[in-house]
């Protein structure tokens, strides 16, 4: 267990959380503690996004004055925005938690990338396979993910403790009933649990909590003039030279921000002037589209999330 700051002073300058956020916070802390107490070797998946940021913050709160008794794991596809990687390294250091980074080297060697291979193969190999490799490599028996039930239809049916049989298989028909808050943390060797402490949070809750708690987020969530190209009706940011322009495409600078962050050529930006958390929350309340709308990997067909999950995607 890491060093402790047992004398951390309260922060009276921060406004009190609303009852609603306080309740969500307590529920998530209970779930996170349950995993630390009930499993031998848990890990927290850290995707660098706003949800991961809240989840990590909750973990730090859950164990205070101890440090979270598990490492963070980032599955790096090598196609994350540069801002994201910078943020990741700063945060790990700031919170004093151990960060593991795993890349599917085999996929990299095969030359898998989102531009030439297409979004679905890239996601399958670099994210899903990469994740399974890392879980096997370290022998983790439980992995936290920041998914929320309000994100997508098949997520709405997901358990908080989601059972995966050996080989990381998610069978929606073979999930354990989850009654009260009596989570079943028992697994046999080779079986694992994915745990979603933010299940009952909404996107708006995440932003309001981020603001209330002063949690740092990747600057890409805030609007700024950025180089983008318009492709299939979506605004794609060119984060580096690896993304070639198609005939007729022009790179232009527009005020954009991201609602959801994934691999950079697969995450579309939205036009926005929201440069602060207050702006983002105001924009969200007026919004008429879901955050995953900008995720190119979801649009193939509406059941695509369920398919990816069966394959082991988070």
């Amino acid at each position, binding site marked *: *267990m890491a060093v*402790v700051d*047992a004398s*951390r002073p*309260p*922060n009276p300058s*921060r406004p009190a959380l*609303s*009852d*609603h*956020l*306080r309740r969500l916070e*307590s*529920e998530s*802390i*209970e779930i996170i*503690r*349950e995993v*630390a*107490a009930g499993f031998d070797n848990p890990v927290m998946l850290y995707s660098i996004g706003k949800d991961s940021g809240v989840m990590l913050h909750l973990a730090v*709160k*859950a*164990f*205070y*004055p*101890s*440090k979270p008794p598990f490492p963070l794991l980032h599955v790096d596809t090598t196609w994350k925005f540069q801002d994201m990687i910078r943020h990741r390294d700063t945060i790990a250091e700031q919170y004093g938690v151990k960060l593991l980074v795993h890349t599917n080297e085999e996929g990299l060697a095969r030359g898998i990338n989102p531009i030439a291979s297409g979004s679905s193969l890239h996601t399958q190999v670099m994210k899903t396979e990469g994740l399974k490799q890392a879980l096997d490599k370290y022998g983790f028996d439980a992995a936290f993910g920041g998914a929320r*039930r*309000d994100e997508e*239809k*098949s997520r*709405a*049916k997901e358990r908080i403790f989601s059972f995966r049989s050996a080989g990381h298989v998610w069978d*929606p*028909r073979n*999930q354990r*009933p989850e*009654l*009260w*808050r*009596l989570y*079943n943390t*028992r*697994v*046999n060797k080779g079986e694992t649990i994915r745990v979603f402490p933010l*299940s*009952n949070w*909404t996107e708006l809750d995440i932003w*309001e909590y981020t603001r209330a708690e002063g949690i740092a987020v990747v600057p890409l969530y805030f609007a700024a003039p950025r180089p983008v190209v318009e492709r299939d009706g979506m605004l794609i940011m060119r984060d580096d030279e690896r993304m070639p322009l198609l005939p007729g495409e022009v790179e232009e600078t527009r005020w954009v921000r991201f609602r959801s962050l994934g691999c950079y050529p697969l995450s579309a930006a939205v036009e926005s002037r929201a440069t602060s958390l207050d702006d983002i929350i*105001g924009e969200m*309340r*007026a*919004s*008429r*589209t*879901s955050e*995953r*709308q900008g995720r190119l990997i979801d649009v193939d067909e509406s*059941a695509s999330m*369920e398919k990816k999950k069966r394959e082991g995607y988070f």
Partner: protein
Amino acid sequence: MDGALIEETQAQTEAPAAAQKGLLRFLTCGSVDDGKSTLIGRLLYDSKLILDDHLAALERDSARHGTTGEELDLALLVDGLEAERQQGITIDVAYRFFTTDKRAFIVADTPGHEQYTRNMATGASNADLAVILIDARKGVLTQTRRHSYICSLLGVRHLVLAVNKIDLADYDQAVFDQIVADYRAFAETLGFASITPVPMSARHGDNVTTRSAHTPWYAGPTLLEHLESIDVESDAAARPFRFPVQWVNRPNLDFRGFSGTIASGTVRPGDRIVVAASGRQSAVTRIVTYDGDLAEARAGQAVTLTLADEVDIARGDLLAPPTDRPEVADQFAAHLIWMGDEPLLPGRPYLMRIGTRYVPVRVTTLKHKVDVDTLDHLAARTLSLNEIGLCNLSTASPVAFDSYADNRETGAFILIDRYTNATVGAGMIAFGLRRAANIHRQAMLVSRADHERMAGHKPATLWFTGLSGSGKSTIANLVERKLHERGVRTFLLDGDNVRHGLNRDLGFSDADRVENVRRVGEVARLFVEAGVVVLCSFISPFRAERRMVRELFAEGEFFEVFVDTTLEDCIARDPKGLYGKALDGKIANFTGVSSPYEPPEHAELILATPALSPDQAADAVIDELERRGRI
């Protein structure tokens, strides 16, 4: 309803008003095709919480899977999984979130399909209110009764009776009144605090979020108005303090805290507490959180407590006020909802999770099962998937609890299968059994150590398991003779012999086999306490029961000896002529032939015959006892 919604009003206001209102968790239940999913879709749609890209997907899907022709099929908004969408039924619990300017809601959409009672119970376990859907054309159905009973059993206090598809009954008040009267007559005994009937059409939106012009005779609230205004604030904070210790927070030698979520009541520094199971007392010194120490914490808050004294406390303990303690017992009566594919076997050990504690448990008596359609009590020997019964349970060690009626948090438990780890049951404790409260263990003047000293060796149980005719008794007899010759005190319990006396009342059904092994295990334990090496020769075909016996003993006292003879060899040998009869169908439930044998996974010793002669096998057992320091 117009203008009542978050994105319309709150986008202009600074503080999110909804965030300050109490959350309402409710579930919807009803029979297949009563329109549950449509109702939730309607709530989301009318609340303008369906976002543009979801609406576009809905339009695509309505054309492909929809059942409403040209109209949007709102049910498709919530029927999440691909498989069930194609079958047109909801097969699992889905959670939906919506917020109006008055309140935040979490809706559990639970299936109406008969075989999925367990999902409904799951949804009900965390709900404050239930919306029971009734098809106006069909009235109160068997499943309406079933779902109402489950809600009542799980402690849901408030009901909305949604008489749906009223449009298809010509908006007829007489139809509505009759259904309400029927339902009230049925639900009288179920103890709901409120029942609010609403005539509605989820498909067309009548009385869901807006008042219907078609039901001028109805003066009550719309569904949403009712949901927004009902007071379900539980009295969790007013009940006695209960704190299940979840995790011991020990960052260094100077800090020792107990982390957990307050199940009920409130706590302040200075409050006296007792560890329910051990009776040890102390006082709370600090309520520690990341945001600073608190002067008070109440039900639902996740905190870390420090205490004035060094008290032995671990995960699973329950802290309570010394003046208002929970019951502590190892035997109690509880309602049990069976959720496993394999039926409940009384006598078989399961794992119980209650609060933050896991403890081995057996159902000792199944008093009756409940016919959920008539609420009649029926005699039963087992519970199958989706059946509900009242049982007596016995835990391996005493646990702290309140009755479920007094406290949903400390009176609920789940049962877990010890091999698959599946959640197979959900229980609600009715009351502790006086037997446990009044029978205390007698302290002995001659201790176990005294017995061992006199014997000059350590006791042990050698548990020989294997198929009938595998050679268990032969080997066990040889081992006993060799031990006897060395001056070791022994006793042999043989399966056939025991069935002539102690267990003469038991047959060969699965339930009786379990009880047979349990009794023998207890007898062996008495001998071990007397310092004896006990040899038990029993087919004992089920892993679960062998594990139950193993857990009666301390580490190192129990030796599972697997006499590993193939079925073919046993049949060829057939010393008692039993295989011949069994293969002819003259003996029912014969292990290896018509009843399974589950070989051990972690036996201390495996004796492979006929590779080993009986004498060599016996020597191997003696060697193992020596190697482990028992003799």
